[in-house]
């Protein structure tokens, strides 16, 4: 069976520095894949590559078997972005638009539906994330957690069956983290394909079908959440339990050097 997404030997350098090295993995339809790693390890760059927002120096990125690395912007739109939606790290809601306009943005841009129909879908998706009461507000009036949930509603409104999340729970309080995690799990149960980039082990553990771990632009682990906890790899062990290494080193701490991100 052809994987929905297939990255093969993807390498990318930014500003003369290698951010990703020989990255290869697959995502099957309906799977929730978590990309785990420390800040600056190159995780978010993978999502931008998948959306065609940046192009790799080497390697191929296949969506439904079609390599998108050589496609022009208009073809990327038709072959890639039409079937995907992304929840950006800081939500990336459009400041000049209301919540209603943000959530229904893609449908209004396409211009294929009547306003009433779009309005109905917008309201349904805002109800799904529990925020139908903020429909008239501007993004600046929302809290961080609310912005992330509005961004999820925007992703759902696009009608895409593939959702990419860039650090969906970063910087949120435990209640909002729990809300977002539950939303991702709810979408997982309704056959959405999801790629979640995070550094939060709890989020990864609760939503992942499979986990990919990146360190300094290299894949250092691929498997299930259970396999991750049993991995003997010292880099993986350090990420799971950083205090263990600090204790052995008697205070002489050497942190992993992050790869630069765009």
């Amino acid at each position, binding site marked *: 069976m052809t994987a929905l997404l297939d990255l093969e030997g993807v390498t990318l350098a930014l500003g003369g520095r290698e951010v990703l090295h020989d990255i290869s993995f697959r995502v099957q339809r309906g799977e929730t894949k978590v990309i785990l790693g420390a800040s600056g390890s190159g995780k978010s760059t993978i999502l931008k590559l998948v*959306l065609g927002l940046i192009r790799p120096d080497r390697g191929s990125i296949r969506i439904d078997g079609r390599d998108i690395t050589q496609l022009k*912007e208009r073809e990327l739109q038709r072959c890639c*972005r039409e079937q995907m939606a992304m929840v950006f790290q800081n939500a990336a809601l*459009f400041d000049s638009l209301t919540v209603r306009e943000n959530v229904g*943005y893609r449908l209004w841009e396409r211009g294929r539906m009547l306003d009433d129909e779009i309005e109905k879908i917008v309201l349904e998706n805002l109800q799904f994330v529990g925020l139908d009461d903020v429909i008239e507000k501007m993004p600046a009036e929302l809290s961080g957690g609310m912005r992330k949930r509005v961004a999820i509603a925007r992703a759902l409104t696009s009608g895409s069956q593939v959702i990419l999340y860039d650090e969906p729970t970063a910087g949120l309080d435990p209640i909002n983290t729990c809300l977002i995690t539950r939303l991702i799990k709810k979408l997982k149960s309704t056959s959405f394909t999801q790629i979640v980039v995070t550094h939060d082990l709890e989020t990864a553990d609760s939503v992942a079908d499979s986990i990919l771990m990146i360190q300094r632009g290299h894949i250092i682990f691929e498997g299930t959440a259970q396999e991750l906890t049993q991995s003997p790899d010292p880099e993986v062990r350090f990420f799971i339990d950083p205090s263990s290494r600090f204790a052995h080193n008697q205070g002489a701490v050497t942190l992993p050097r992050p790869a630069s991100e765009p």
Partner: protein
Amino acid sequence: MIAPSSTLREIAIGAVLVVQEFTVLCMHALAGLAGSRRYASEIIVQIERVGVGSLFIVILTGLFTGMVLTLQGAIQLEPYGATIYVSRLVSTSVVRELGPVLAALMIAGRVGTGIASELASMQVTEQIDAMRAEGTDPIQKLVTTRLIACVLMIPILTIVADGIAMVGGWLIATVTLSIDSYFYWTWALEALFPRDLVLGLVKPVVFGFLIAMVGCYAGLRTTGGTVGVGLSTTQSMVSSSILVLSADFLLTKLSMVWS
């Protein structure tokens, strides 16, 4: 130690790259004109921002320019007993040079920096990426709309600035210099040729293009968070001012050769 030749080479390559990127952005924005009707509401918003928003500052610029020009011109003409012709000096200076250039510089400060900082903020908060991810061409939606607004509104604002400057000159001429209104307006209009009017309207179109494109370019290539936003805004103001003044010289020289 870095060899001076390699530093110079890097600077030269950097400059060529900037010109190349700017040219590509301009071509992309112009190509976006074809389907710009779908963003009619956005164009109207931008026209309101550029036109109505800059009206007050342009009126003040025009008024004081005309008044100062009349006062200074009268001092120079008085020894020759030619004070009555001061309106010729005002109308030709304002329509040919001062109106378009001063209005453009004021608009570059107000509108160009506004465009740069808005797009720069969108860039650093990933809104531009989000727009692309949502299937929108950010250049057509953000750049082409602003370009249309600037190219349409800056000539209109320049006409306003020219008119107000001549009114300002008339106020000083009649109140301070006791020049009859009939003579002021007769000499002012008689000094103008159709070529001056054409040049006075071609210049603001070019300036509008430059202000919009420099503002958009500076905004869209922003990196480095809020510090980058500040730098892009400053860069936009400096670059568009220099380009406006250079283009003014070039257009004046071209019009002289042509005539």
